[in-house]
């Protein structure tokens, strides 16, 4: 069925003859989605939306957004390269993810803005007004559960009838497909492999995500904002979660699904997935910058001595920075949280911050590793 749909809408490859406007839109999309620009644009978008939240919380804004993105999809669907990726049955959920995450983010922002205005005027929040009234589970809750269940089952059945679950060729351990991708929900982590070695991107950072999530209720001592949407009563917590969830998780899943092709090279949404596209690898270790670049000497043979600059830098980052910040600019935070909470938080936060720091250094000065000891599989 999806194949039929793709054919109707112009799928199936072949040369693309676009008018000047269409070509300009496609070129701009390909240009903007290049990983560096994509990430910077996402950061700016998150910051901008939070800052101008009153504007973005309007119903008209989200309506216009969804109308425009639907129009864009209809336009893009006719491009064989875009079509080939977007109509893969397993990528339908990613489109659903994109739409639902944006919609619910908007919804929560809208309610937060309304609640914050109400609180300022001294009125109860949207939830506060209703929470004083109690209703019986039967029928109020049970019926809405039943309605959700029936509608949802119907939607699932329609989806299952329309789109057949794909099955590729039988498993062959000798033939590696290109690209080889992890399941889609781990593509954010696979994207981190561009910047970090597997022991960090695949083991340590995911473990810290789980530990960090578990620690949230014990680290966030702000009693406000419990049980209602708000931004102004917990600006840091909300911004932090937006950055973590929207930027480093959801947007990287989308990047990994739609924009990473053979050899994990970047491909714009309208670009053909060419197996032979090569990206030059010119990344340089910090040790090379230090010994060769700064001191104009060959790198020492001893690995520890060679990597000393990186080791000093990271030890300073993880061990000296927290007490230093605690004694100076974050003094209030230490008194609020206590020593243990502060240190746990700082370490989790510094690991988290290492990701954008390393990404930024890769984009600007082609940094490969802070510490590069391939002899011991110890590369940071």
């Amino acid at each position: 069925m999806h194949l039929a749909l793709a054919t109707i809408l112009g799928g199936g490859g072949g040369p693309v003859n676009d008018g000047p406007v269409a070509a300009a839109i496609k070129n701009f999309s390909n240009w903007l989605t290049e990983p560096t620009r994509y990430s910077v644009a996402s950061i700016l978008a998150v910051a901008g939306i939070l800052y101008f939240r009153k504007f973005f919380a309007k119903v008209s804004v989200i309506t216009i957004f969804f109308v425009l993105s639907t129009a864009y999809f209809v336009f893009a669907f006719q491009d064989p390269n875009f079509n080939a990726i977007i109509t893969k049955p397993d990528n339908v959920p990613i489109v659903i993810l994109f739409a639902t995450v944006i919609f619910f983010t908007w919804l929560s922002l809208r309610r937060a803005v309304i609640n914050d205005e109400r609180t300022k005027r001294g009125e109860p929040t949207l939830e506060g007004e209703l929470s004083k009234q109690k209703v019986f589970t039967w029928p109020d809750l049970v019926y809405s559960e039943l309605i959700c269940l029936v509608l949802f089952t119907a939607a699932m059945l329609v989806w299952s009838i329309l789109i057949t679950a794909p099955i590729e060729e039988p498993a062959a351990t000798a033939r590696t497909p290109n690209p080889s991708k992890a399941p889609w929900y781990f593509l954010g982590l696979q994207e981190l492999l561009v910047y970090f070695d597997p022991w960090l991107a695949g083991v340590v950072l995911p473990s810290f995500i789980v530990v960090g999530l578990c620690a949230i209720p014990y680290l966030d001592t702000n009693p406000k904002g419990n049980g209602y949407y708000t931004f102004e009563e917990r600006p840091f917590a909300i911004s932090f979660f937006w950055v973590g969830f929207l930027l480093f998780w959801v947007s990287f899943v989308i990047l990994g699904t739609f924009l990473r092709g053979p050899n994990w090279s970047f491909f714009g949404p309208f670009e053909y997935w060419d197996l032979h596209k090569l990206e030059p690898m010119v990344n340089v270790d910090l040790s090379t910058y230090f010994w060769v670049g700064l001191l104009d000497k060959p790198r020492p043979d001893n690995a520890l001595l060679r990597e000393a600059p990186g080791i000093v830098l990271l030890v300073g980052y993880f061990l000296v920075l927290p007490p230093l910040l605690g004694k100076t600019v974050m003094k209030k935070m230490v008194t609020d949280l206590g020593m243990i909470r502060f240190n746990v938080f700082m370490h989790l936060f510094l690991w988290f911050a290492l990701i954008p720091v390393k990404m930024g250094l890769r984009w600007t000065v082609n940094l490969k590793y802070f510490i590069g000891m391939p002899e011991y599989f110890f590369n940071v």
Partner: protein
Amino acid sequence: MTKLFKYVRESQIWKSVFRHGYPDTPRNRTLAVLSNVFLHLHPVKVRRSGIRLSYTWCMGGLTFFLFLILTLTGLLLMFYYRPTADKAYEDIFALREHVPIGVMREMHRWGAHLMVISVWLHMYRVFLTGSYKPPREFNWNVGVILLVLTLLLSFTGYLLPWDQLAVWAITVGTNMARATPFLGHEGPGAALVSFGGIDFIHAGDDVRFGLLAGRFVGEGALLRFYVLHCVGFPLIAATLMAVHFWRVRKDGGISGPL
């Protein structure tokens, strides 16, 4: 007709099942919830704010419902599937070729994708409404473990069709385990775990070997993933879900302003 209904309602069989009248009075509505083992996961009364879709997004409920759909369709799929390297692909292929308008595999696959999304959105909502704050800290932790289990369930299920997509996605995923510090043979510090010149950690006994029951994704991995997918993880998840729902109730129902 009314007479017939009345007769049925007053029969011994009906009364042995339902211990209350039609739930249209406060008393009977209370009893309807209290005397039913499934419904009593809910409190008798809930905050009006807590049942608004604009507040809850219904994502937790949807996740649970998807778990039920997946259990049911998964059970049916198990009848037609043999987890061996030479039969697995054949069986899945046969399901597609021989069953007209078959939807069980589709429901299972699309449902699994959706469950991952709905768990994320549920967590997102719980965070944005600050519902992890006291007294719900512990339940947030149970939720985090359930999130991990959902991903593990999906990950183990990914391998079972035994096609190229499955095998290579699991290969890419489990290759990470190679690099586990100290416990993977390509991880930092693994070389330190040796005694008298004998390495304890090598490709034949590291974490990845334990996950895959072999040095690569083969028959051992298929069986291991199958058992975990169909029995191990669902049992743990179901148990933790019971804890999760019970704690929601005990911690004061769906969160609302204090």
